[in-house]
């Protein structure tokens, strides 16, 4: 069991979208880790799967056997929100709203999403939305009502390019963008699958390269790590699994998300190769 520290809840609940444009960059992994991290700190948190038709968050959260009703059932009036929310067994502050495995993106409507989010705002401090890949309907609905965005990016050209597109959408096609009186969405970049060795060898762009291009603040850097695979195998958000540098990096990102100042550390979970150990080189 993980200890839970109680902290002052935010005055107003916040909707945070985890988005990226590109698929497979680590959105769902990050949504699971960030929501568990927020709940660990005492915030009432719910994480919603917006990837209609490709339900995966439930597996990463380890609650796939308990899904009865989903987000779409709630939107279509077939179930009450309370019935569709799955309470996490490890953290009492954490709930999961799974998506449908059988419908398509068109089952989501803007009005339906808004209604569910408003109802969740009454109960939760943080509402974390796991966006599908792409920049179409599903992804746009996941970001539309967001107060903040975590743009998940890998240090690789197509991922950075897609993140740039997504930043454009965040500042034009969202409720906050359309309301002249509202503050724009606060967007931050989360660099994931960061591979120190490949960056040292010049194969991959550095954090600075990526930030210079995207021009948004950095929420954190998550190393490429086998701890992520192990955590997903067992259905455990990585911050609740055995300690690893990836888990510590997510915990730091959560601290920054709630406004704490935490120094950026960049430790990899990779063991140095025999060659590096023999010659004392650290990549």
């Amino acid at each position, binding site marked *: 069991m993980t200890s839970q520290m109680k902290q002052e809840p935010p005055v107003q609940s916040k909707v945070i979208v985890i988005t990226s444009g590109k698929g497979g960059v680590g959105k769902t992994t990050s949504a699971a880790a960030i929501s568990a991290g927020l709940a660990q700190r005492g915030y009432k948190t719910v994480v919603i799967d917006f990837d209609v038709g490709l339900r995966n968050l439930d*597996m990463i959260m380890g609650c796939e*056997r308990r899904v*009865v*009703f989903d987000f779409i059932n709630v939107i279509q009036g*077939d*179930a*009450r929100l*309370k019935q569709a929310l799955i309470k996490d067994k490890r953290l009492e502050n954490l709930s999961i709203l799974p998506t449908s495995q059988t419908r398509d993106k068109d089952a989501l409507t803007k009005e339906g999403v808004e209604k569910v989010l408003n109802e969740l705002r009454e109960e939760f401090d943080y509402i974390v939305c796991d966006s599908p890949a792409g920049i179409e309907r599903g992804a746009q609905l996941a970001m539309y009502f967001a107060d903040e965005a975590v743009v998940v990016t890998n240090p690789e050209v197509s991922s950075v390019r897609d993140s740039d597109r997504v930043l454009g959408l965040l500042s034009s096609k969202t409720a906050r963008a359309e309301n002249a009186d509202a503050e724009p969405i606060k967007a931050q970049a989360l660099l994931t699958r960061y591979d120190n060795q490949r960056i040292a060898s010049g194969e991959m762009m550095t954090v600075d390269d990526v930030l210079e291009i995207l021009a948004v603040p950095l929420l954190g850097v998550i190393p490429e790590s086998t701890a992520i695979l*192990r955590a997903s195998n067992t259905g455990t958000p990585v911050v609740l699994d055995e300690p690893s540098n990836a888990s510590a990096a997510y915990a730091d990102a959560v601290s920054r998300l709630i406004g704490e100042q935490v120094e950026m550390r960049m430790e990899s979970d990779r063991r140095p190769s025999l060659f590096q150990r023999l010659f004392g080189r650290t990549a």
Partner: protein
Amino acid sequence: MFGFSLRPRKTAPKSAQTARDRLQILLAHERSSGSGPDCLPELQRDILAAIKRHMKIDTDAVDIRMDRGDELSSLEINIEFPASQPAR
């Protein structure tokens, strides 16, 4: 003989085994025709309708839980109603 294996060969890592088991259970349920997409909402409606013929209950007072297992799954339905409710 010289061997390349200096340590005993590792058995399959534990977490991969867990992943396999979880997927097998889940996919078996997803593939079985009996649990079609809207089977649960429909079941809920039918159960509610049946109960409402006998007693007055609030739709909100129904709590449905599921636990899918490899041999057995359980569907738990909890209905709250006032203690001293007269039958209709």
